């Protein structure tokens, strides 16, 4: 029995490592969120932009990217739209 347990123990999953990995990812993410300080209106702005573009070209939701970057004394609103091939 002792011999079996000895080998079984070696195979047991190391959950502490898993905890560390999860925490590192989570905390990096939360810090990024905080430093980005995206304005609250961003999702709504994005939706409305998509609607306007769709009047002319059909784009998928995922083709429109809205991003705010914080500079030292200025913020940049970045708008990235990927047009479908057929629109050209």
């Amino acid at each position, binding site marked *: 029995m002792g*011999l079996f347990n000895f080998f079984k123990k070696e195979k047991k999953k190391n959950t502490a490592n898993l905890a560390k990995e999860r925490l590192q990812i989570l905390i990096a993410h939360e810090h990024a969120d905080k430093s980005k300080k995206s304005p609250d209106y961003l999702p709504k702005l994005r939706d409305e932009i998509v609607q306007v573009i769709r009047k002319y070209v059909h784009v998928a939701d995922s083709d429109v990217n809205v991003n705010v970057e914080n500079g030292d004394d200025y913020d940049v609103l970045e708008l990235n739209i990927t047009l479908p091939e057929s629109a050209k």
Partner: protein
Amino acid sequence: MSKVIVVTSGKGGVGKTTSSAAFAAGLAAKGHKTAVIDFDVGLRNLDLIMGVERRVVYDFVNVINGEATLKQALIKDKRVDNLYILPASQTRDKDALSKEGVESVINELKKEFEFIVCDSPAGIEKGAFMALYFADEAIIVTNPEVSSVRDSDRILGILQSRSKAAEDGKTVKEHLLITRYSPDRVEGGDMLGMDDIVEILSVPLIGVIPESGSVLQASNSGNPVIMDKDSEAGQAYQDVVARFLGEEVPLRFIDVEPKKGFFQKLFG
């Protein structure tokens, strides 16, 4: 120059009050005049952990509202010279703590005390915010467990952005205190190790308190665990106090005690 030290964590039940009581008692025992304030308005417990629950007449909120003087509200500890306790109110809510009120009490304490230890409530609401706002230094109490580590990170963020020191362009000196540590479980891969926690939070370590039955025994009897000089937890808290005062003390109780030999393990 007196110092204001907040004992905080974000998460509840990790050992803030136990650590505040032990830390304050340890500082006082080393000859430093120390006051410890319970900021958990509505759910006071520091008085119970310190064994002075039957001596509470006036509290922190009474002093803020001018219903009692600070002298009337401070409870002098009967075991340790230089140690005074300012209990929280049991009947009001956390909104009773105004920034101006807390500031005036802390300023008055600064005239007489070398160290002012602020025992923070759990959470990130008003009581916790008030406890950390005036701090010069902070002890972040963390358990080796994911939710506690995450909440500690949140509290660190608040210390760095919303404390008075941060507003004045200064920094709060941070210390990490890991409690309820089990070297056996760390070695078995079931518990986050101290190095991992330090790496994740990047705050210098001031001590590691081992999981110990003596902590519960101490709270049962209303004695700060640091007074239990035979217990590992008590000794680990004494090391914390010594390190805080600038002594170099190696960490203890962080490794698995040797038990079974190889053959015993194999055939046992």
